[in-house]
């Protein structure tokens, strides 16, 4: 299972492609692609790269447990939750960009 993640161009914040078809900061709302959905996943990545508002677009392997989306790699878990020592909140994405992001929705 994989999710698609990126950084916002202007804020640099970590964002995920969400089940709603837009981008946001909450990994638990990330759209989880099964292996048979690879073509759809790749279309999301292609559109994200073309959007001009997202950079460093990557896919990450995850598992789902108790309604939560958990990245397999520690790196990605830290990316989702912020630095661990001392604890810092992740960077806040630009809300006003949500509209512009909508054009990369499926």
């Amino acid at each position, binding site marked *: 299972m994989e999710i698609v993640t990126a*950084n916002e*161009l*202007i*804020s*640099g*914040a*970590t964002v995920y492609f969400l089940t709603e078809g837009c981008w946001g900061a909450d990994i638990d709302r990330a759209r989880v692609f099964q292996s048979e959905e690879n073509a759809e996943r790749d279309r999301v990545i292609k559109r994200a790269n073309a959007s*001009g508002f997202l*950079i*460093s677009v990557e896919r990450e392997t995850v598992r789902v447990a108790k309604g939560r989306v958990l990245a*397999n*790699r*520690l*790196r990605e878990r*830290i*990316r989702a939750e*912020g*630095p*661990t*020592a*001392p604890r*810092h909140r*992740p*960077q806040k994405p630009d809300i006003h960009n949500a509209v512009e992001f909508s054009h990369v929705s499926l």
Partner: protein
Amino acid sequence: MYRYDQFDAEFVAGRVAQFTDQVERRISGELSEDQFRPLRLMNGLYLQLHAYMLRVAVPYGTMNSTQLRKLAHIARTYDRGYGHFTTRQNIQFNWPRLDDVPQILSELASVEMHAIQTSGNCIRNVTTDQFAGAAADEIIDPRPVAEIIRQWSSLHPEFSFLPRKFKIAITGAPNDRAAIKFHDIGLMAQQDEQGKVGWAVYVGGGMGRTPMVAKEISPFVPHSDLLAYLESILRVYNRYGRRDNKYKARIKILVHEEGLATLREQVESEFLQVRGGVLNLPDDELSRIKAYFAPPAFKDSDARFDLAALKVSDPEFARFVLHNTNQHAQAGYTSITISLKPVGGVPGDATDAQMEVVADLAQRFSFDELRVSHEQNLVLPHVAIDDVRAVYEALNGAGLGEANVGQITDMIVCPGLDYCALANARSIPVAQEISRRFGSARRQEEIGDLKIKISGCINACGHHHAGHIGILGVEKRGTELYQITVGGNAGENAAIGNILGRGIVAEEVPDAIEQLVEIYLKARSGAEENFLGTLKRVGEAPFREALYGND
């Protein structure tokens, strides 16, 4: 310290305007990320795990209070109220927004600072001894030469696209506090038989996945020829350095593969062509630059510390004097190291409020001068001994009075996986646990000088190869593991540490360090024998056995 002339000011202002335009074009979509990435990197702007990271140059680690206040302002206004001082004597901000960066650079330019050449395959910020111009053991103040190298290397048209990044360190003292032998080029001041000062040149040092101690390519290069000699080395590297493999592109690989003798021959051949030309450094130009670094107006004083009496009357202050001051060339003065390693804190971090306090102290007590050390501490280089107590009390009030410089809790630590896009494992929490474990003053006094250095990946930004005890974070099947090395040394007797055995999990690291320390304390011939001395005498076997038994 050096002040910008008209050329410098126009050059930096022009660069800010240029990058402002580039950011606007990136945001408008006129520039793609592939087009923009090299442009932002040329201005010190990286993308890390959580946000952009801006690396600001502190030329040869020298600042004044106005500049530090500006850094505090940037931390407060555009970041999250703190900055991270690095082993390259620079400062990094971890949370800037792309659309704020032009304004940040403009504010930096207003105090003669910038982020140019803090990234990319160019000659990076020249680093030096944090006690330059102050240390009692100094042959010559290296800052004028460092400044000349800065001017020569800034946007050097021939060396802006080298095979790989290139780092130069310089020390004017025989006691190497700048880790010069772990740089692409290291310069150490020498005096010839006539008392004339020049530079021993070392080449091909570095850390990373292939650590190398630099080799002496020339025992003595006179001042007047230094730029020509550096240019010759860079030309040979630029021509023959490997561009086919990023991991083999540093000059250390060229030295290793071609051999020092071959490289020296090539450099000398180039030097014959270059010396005596436009790169010749006339005495009057050196004198002009030197004038910027003239010693401050010291007052005559015979004040000195009575450490024995202080140990009785005020042991805490005595401990600060013992560890956090360095002998000054001027009688009645000392240099104070401000530890950015509070017990359990984040090594190298300073809040905006702390930066303001340090700036005030520099202005009041250190002729407005400040330094950043490659060991991620700050320095007030010229403090009257009579003022040290006032400085100590002010530092304590700001949470900066830790008297641990050179001790086991004064660790070099990279940002690791908490921030860095390249890291494999976290460094900061491991350092915090070690710091808490050894935090008691009595324990640290018992152990004495011992340098631990931690890197979160093989790129070795935390200098683990040069730690008396080094810790390298790796990742194996999703688990952070830490390899322990012993025997590294960043000083004039530079050495690379050896790995003791398999990696261990983070929770086991403090116990492992404790075991190594216990072996050292039991095996040392006396308190005057440091960790490296004991290791050399008894070998690695007892240390390895302490961690791994007879595996």
